[in-house]
């Protein structure tokens, strides 16, 4: 269809966690697409289903309790949901890799960092031990750690350096898609900037597409080409970064921007969005955001809004704009 090739396309994905207490609807009817070399930001509150989406793409959702009910995840023309475990293992780490949130716990404490990078290389490339070690040292240097430290254990590194090691592991096999699950949340602000710069640099160098999961709109502005705002398992607004920052449409997105304190306004209080995320086992009827929405109408509590394209490449799930669309 499109002239640029799509690397990843998620169509109508539904992921639920089925527990004794009830069914958690973690991801509902999600559709996204990612072109080669692009960076997509997934933004949302804790529990909005961002990590579940990422694990869904990796096919790493624990079953039970998790279950992918329906949908398609098309990577490079092939549906990942139809692949066998053996085929998936060849893709993980090789073509799609993932950076986890907390570098403190995502490295194995009893293996040296060199061994951990070499492990991915040995798994996916046909090399012997010495070549793998050599490559792992090269990767360490790529992320700015001298290779003399490859025989050190994770506890001998600081948080920022551990995250660099994790990035080195993720990029060791030159994947086409990198999923970064809040890669800077556990780091302090100065290190965040370093890690983000490094990721941006390597992303261009290796020509990797990226899904950046975050709740930091600053990071989105800095690195993402497109953004999907998630709320309670739904994508509520999906557009490119420029549109989102200049012209947010969905009441939730507007609320998110309003809750960033502005240094020019001399206000003593923060302006949060009122209320809490709904209980994911018991989502409200209609639009999941309507109990907190300042512009809620009667229809919002009865029907679920559909995805509406208000401008080119600017999709919003909200009745406010569906009506506008219908009238015009």
């Amino acid at each position, binding site marked *: 269809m499109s002239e640029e090739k799509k690397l990843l396309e998620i169509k109508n994905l539904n992921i639920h966690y089925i527990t004794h207490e009830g069914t958690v609807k973690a991801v509902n009817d999600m559709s996204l697409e990612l072109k080669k070399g692009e960076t997509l930001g997934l933004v949302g509150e804790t529990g909005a289903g961002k990590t579940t989406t990422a694990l869904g793409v990796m096919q790493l959702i624990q079953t039970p309790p998790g279950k992918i009910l329906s949908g398609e995840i098309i990577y490079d023309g092939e549906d990942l949901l139809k692949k066998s475990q053996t085929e998936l293992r060849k893709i*993980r780490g090789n073509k799609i890799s993932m950076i986890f949130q907390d570098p403190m716990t*995502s490295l194995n404490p009893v293996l040296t960092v060199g061994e951990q990078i070499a492990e991915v290389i040995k798994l996916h490339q046909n090399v012997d031990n010495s070549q793998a070690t050599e490559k792992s040292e090269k990767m360490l240097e790529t992320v700015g750690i001298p290779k003399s*430290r490859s025989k050190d*254990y994770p506890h001998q590194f600081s948080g920022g350096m551990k995250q660099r090691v994790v990035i080195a*592991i993720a990029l060791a096999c030159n994947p086409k898609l990198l999923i970064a699950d809040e890669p800077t949340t556990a780091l302090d602000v100065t290190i965040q900037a370093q890690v983000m710069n490094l990721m941006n640099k390597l992303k261009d160098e290796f020509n990797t597409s990226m899904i950046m999961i975050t709740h930091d709109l600053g990071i989105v502005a800095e690195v993402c080409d497109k953004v999907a705002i998630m709320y309670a398992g739904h994508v509520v607004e999906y557009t490119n970064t420029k549109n989102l920052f200049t012209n947010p449409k969905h009441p939730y997105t507007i609320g998110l921007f309003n809750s960033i304190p502005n240094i020019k306004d001399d206000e003593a209080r923060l302006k949060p969005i009122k209320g809490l995320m709904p209980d994911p086992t018991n989502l409200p009827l209609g639009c999941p955001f309507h109990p907190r929405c300042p512009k809620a109408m009667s229809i919002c509590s009865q029907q679920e809004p559909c995805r509406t394209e208000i401008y080119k490449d600017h999709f919003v799930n909200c009745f406010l704009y569906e009506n506008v669309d219908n009238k015009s």
Partner: protein
Amino acid sequence: MTDQLNVNMSNEDIKKKSTKKRSQYLEVWRRLKQNKSAMVGLLIIIILILSAILAPFIAPYGIDDQDLLNTLQTPSKDHWMGTDNFGRDIFSRIVYGSIISLQVGFISVGIAMIVGGSLGAIAGYYGGKLDNLIMRMMDILLAIPSILLAISIVAALGHGLKNVMIAVGISSIPSYARIVRASVLTLKDQEFVEAARAVGTNNTRIILKHIIPNSMAPIIVQATLGVAGAILSAAGLSFIGLGIQLPTPEWGAMLSSGRQFIRDYPHMTAFPGLAIMITIFGLNLLGDGLRDALDPRLKN
């Protein structure tokens, strides 16, 4: 700006490089060295191992060199620990006995560790019905007193060193299965295991390379203490006549054969008993020391 920071960082690294690198096990060894009683235990074990290796050079007499003119001698210059009712030198027999004891101790613990450990790892990692099945079988084994279980296994398989090792090994499988399962359960949800899965590692490799090395601490402690238990069980089996048969110089069997002379010639039972006691004492001291050294909460 970032580049500047990078440069600073690598300079710092170069400085760091000169400080001594320590792996986890070196760290444990450093802590173990500070524990005096553990070092006493280690010394006892080293002496025992040396005497087992060098038995032919240390022992002044052979295993069953009978000297019928000198039966039931009390300790003297020629016979350091006296002689038994056939005139055999007790010291030599105890030295040779250390070979048997070490064999029984380490091999039966090895059997228990490998079988129990892999059953526990499988049960903990895969969970569900398989876990239930394996652990209920372990519960059945645990319900039978281990010495009784060992007696019945030896009774079924017959006497001999090999069967004693198998019997003692089987009866301590459940404890390893439980320990390994417990640590696998806490480890399998760790993020680094998920990260390993995310780079395409298969289950077997995750268990062997990521989970087992992280759960070594409790296994090492249990194994050290288990060797003591195994030596004791084997001696017990030999004492009641089900284990290693005479004239093999097994400590338990020596105790048993000295039993009828205990009123008049207590040295015949005292020395093998002492040998067992000191060995167990040493292993327990080392085991306790290892447990403290491997426990991260006691780091100092």
